């Protein structure tokens, strides 16, 4: 029963990414949306926690990355960038969604 976890808060302001990462299981997918996309910033303190998430696919929403000026050159490796259609696909490919509000 794979979960799609969505995180929408900046990891610099809020502990929700951290809590999410403590509850993900191998095979789950984590999708960063809204201010949650700031977790992908290369050289940022929050990126370390993200890099350590083993066995979990990590994606980020393109609309939110672009709106915040986060281009590919500013992102850590291993992040799949998806558009809203890709978000829908992730919801379909997993069994249910948990929003870490």
């Amino acid at each position, binding site marked *: 029963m794979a979960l799609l976890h969505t995180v929408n808060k900046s990891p610099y302001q809020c502990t929700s990414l951290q809590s999410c990462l403590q509850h993900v299981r191998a095979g789950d997918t984590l999708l960063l949306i809204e201010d949650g996309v700031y977790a992908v910033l290369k050289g940022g303190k929050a990126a370390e926690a993200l890099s350590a998430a083993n066995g979990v696919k990590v994606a980020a929403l393109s609309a939110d990355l672009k709106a915040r000026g986060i281009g590919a050159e500013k992102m850590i490796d291993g992040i799949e960038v998806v558009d809203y259609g890709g978000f829908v696909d992730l919801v379909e490919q997993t069994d249910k969604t948990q*929003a870490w509000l």
Partner: protein
Amino acid sequence: MKLGIVVYEGPYQHEASDTAYNFAVAALQKGHEIFRVFFYHDGVNNGTRLTTPPQDDRHIQQRWSELAEKHGLDLVVCVAAAQRRGIVDEDEKNRHGKDADNIAPGFRISGLGQLIEAGIQCDRLVTFGD
């Protein structure tokens, strides 16, 4: 798949309603069915027709109303949450002796059971909030 979408925050203050809307549009484009969009907590504030956002910005309520009309979406505003925040339709206006209503086209006010029913009926429930 059959989708239920849940929105917890009002328009403009949080991005939640924008994300939910963009997600809904993408899901419809991919041919999925949206069983219901349920507005809870401050999310009920998406359903007032009295907003006048700046002309060079998106009109969040109108977008929802137009999407509902085009695709026959069921936009449900939770009655208990709506009473706390002042979202009122004709029935609620009469029931509580108010002198105006403000519900937008395509939205309807109903009970929390509609959220549970969405959970039962839908293949997936996706929540957007703060």
